[in-house]
């Protein structure tokens, strides 16, 4: 039995978890807000993408240019009109819990709206390459997973370049490191927060579109990914982008490689076990800075 296909599949799933987790990290890293609506936002972009695909039949990968910017504005507006007022009202509290409740509530609203409009059925975008398989010698790889791996790697690299090399990227990092001092540099932190939120949801659009050809769409699809993304983020270290990179790969690999040897429900147990062991040894996560 060859492990190669499951390693590639694991890397591909891991890359998608990582992309989702990086969005979560971006929001936490700049705003110190944990977004419990992240999974619901993923579901939103998957359903939107599915509907556009079903209506037009355009290749899902091409839809990135439409759904990506669209989700950017959804995120931008969510921050500006939903999160910002609550953050502002709680700015003098030591432990603001309102924003957490808000995002959790928002995810319930989104999920139930989706149930109402989209229905509870499981659907999958059966594209003409959904069942394509590439064979290299004795190993065979599913085409959409391989494409997914490549696209997520490219987008991750673009995000890294954006954060490191551009003016808004630098402003975002500065705001995350010290928002009060960033304001002394003339940085409008509220606008920076909205950009961070927008990018985070645009990343979800990419993840959703990459999943579309081989993963089912349903109003509760976000839950699985949100839990995985939280594990990836905490495993890698809260707010650390390289941490999210490594965390994603670890989880993806455990999931698929272990599935070769045991049943799927046991692999989940294994993921949590590894997660707990890491937290036990290094509570701040693999790449996190220790808490003060």
């Amino acid at each position, binding site marked *: 039995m060859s492990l190669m296909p499951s390693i590639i599949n694991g890397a591909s799933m891991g890359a998608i978890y990582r992309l989702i987790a990086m969005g979560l990290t971006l929001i936490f890293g700049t705003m110190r807000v944990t977004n419990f609506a992240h999974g619901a936002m993923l579901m939103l972009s998957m359903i939107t993408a599915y509907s556009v695909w079903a209506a037009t039949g355009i290749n899902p990968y091409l839809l990135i240019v439409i759904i990506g910017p669209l989700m950017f504005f959804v995120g931008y507006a969510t921050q500006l009109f939903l999160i910002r007022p609550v953050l502002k009202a709680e700015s*003098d509290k030591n432990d603001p819990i309102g924003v957490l409740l808000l995002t959790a509530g928002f995810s319930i609203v989104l999920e139930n709206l989706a149930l109402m409009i989209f229905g509870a059925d499981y659907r999958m975008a059966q594209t003409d390459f959904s069942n394509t398989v590439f064979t290299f010698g004795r190993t065979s790889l599913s085409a959409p997973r391989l494409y997914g791996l490549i696209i997520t790697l490219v987008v991750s690299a673009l995000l890294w370049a954006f954060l490191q090399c551009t*003016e808004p990227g*630098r*402003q975002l*990092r*500065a705001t995350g*490191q*010290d928002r*009060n*001092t*960033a*304001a*002394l*540099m*003339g*940085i*409008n*932190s509220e606008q920076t927060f909205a950009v961070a939120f927008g990018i985070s949801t645009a990343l979800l659009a990419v993840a959703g579109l990459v999943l579309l050809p081989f993963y089912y769409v349903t109003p509760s699809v976000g839950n699985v990914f949100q839990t995985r993304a939280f594990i990836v983020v905490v495993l890698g270290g809260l707010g650390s982008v390289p941490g999210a990179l490594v965390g994603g790969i670890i989880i993806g690999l455990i999931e698929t490689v272990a599935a070769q040897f045991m049943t799927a429900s046991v692999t989940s147990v294994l993921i949590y076990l590894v997660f707990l062991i890491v937290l036990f040894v290094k509570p701040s996560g693999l790449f996190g800075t220790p808490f003060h």
Partner: protein
Amino acid sequence: MSKLLEIEGVCSGYGDVKVLHDINLYVEEGEILSVVGANGAGKTTLMRTISGQLPTTAGEIRFMGEAVNHLPAYKIAERGIIQVPEGRRLFPYMTVHENLLIGSTMKHVRASREKNLQYIYQLLPRLKERERQVASTLSGGEQQMLAIGRALMENPRILMLDEPSLGLSPLLVSTVFELVQTIAKAGTTVLLVEQNVKQALKISSRAYVLENGVVAMNGPSSELIDNPYVKKAFLGL
């Protein structure tokens, strides 16, 4: 000389805790003004109020004749009121170079980025040597230099320094004060807040003494340095 910054009857504080009471103060274009006082006198609160990090509860702050006390902090920085905060407050995970770049992130100062970088690296060659080093790994003195350099990247109309000598060795303290004088000579107005009263009075033209959130006295620094009360309370004479 014209008044660049005017503070009139300003009260401020943290929530219900009032720290500053009816502060009146002005800074003239081109001078070094110092605000001195003991720990807890309200010096940092004054800095934070001017730069918009704390709201005024009464009074007005005018910059070049326009009220600025209701603007958010980032807009005050855009006007050219630049603060070097107490404790440097560098971006710890960024390199020296990146910290300087973020200083010139405002649109209207980006054009002079290269020119300012060259000037700062020439003024503070240690920063050039450490260009690629992460800010948190610098020594205290280097961090203070970087914080000042970062502020200079913002093209300040008025540079407000909050305790720049805090936690530095005596040798570095005099280096910092020399640097402040160099910056002022190059044409930047300076508002210097210090606990090191003697040094601050030596390099400034005028000074205000803060005590328990009120201006206890003010006047030319050369007179205050000989004032019996100042001598007794701050200079240990």
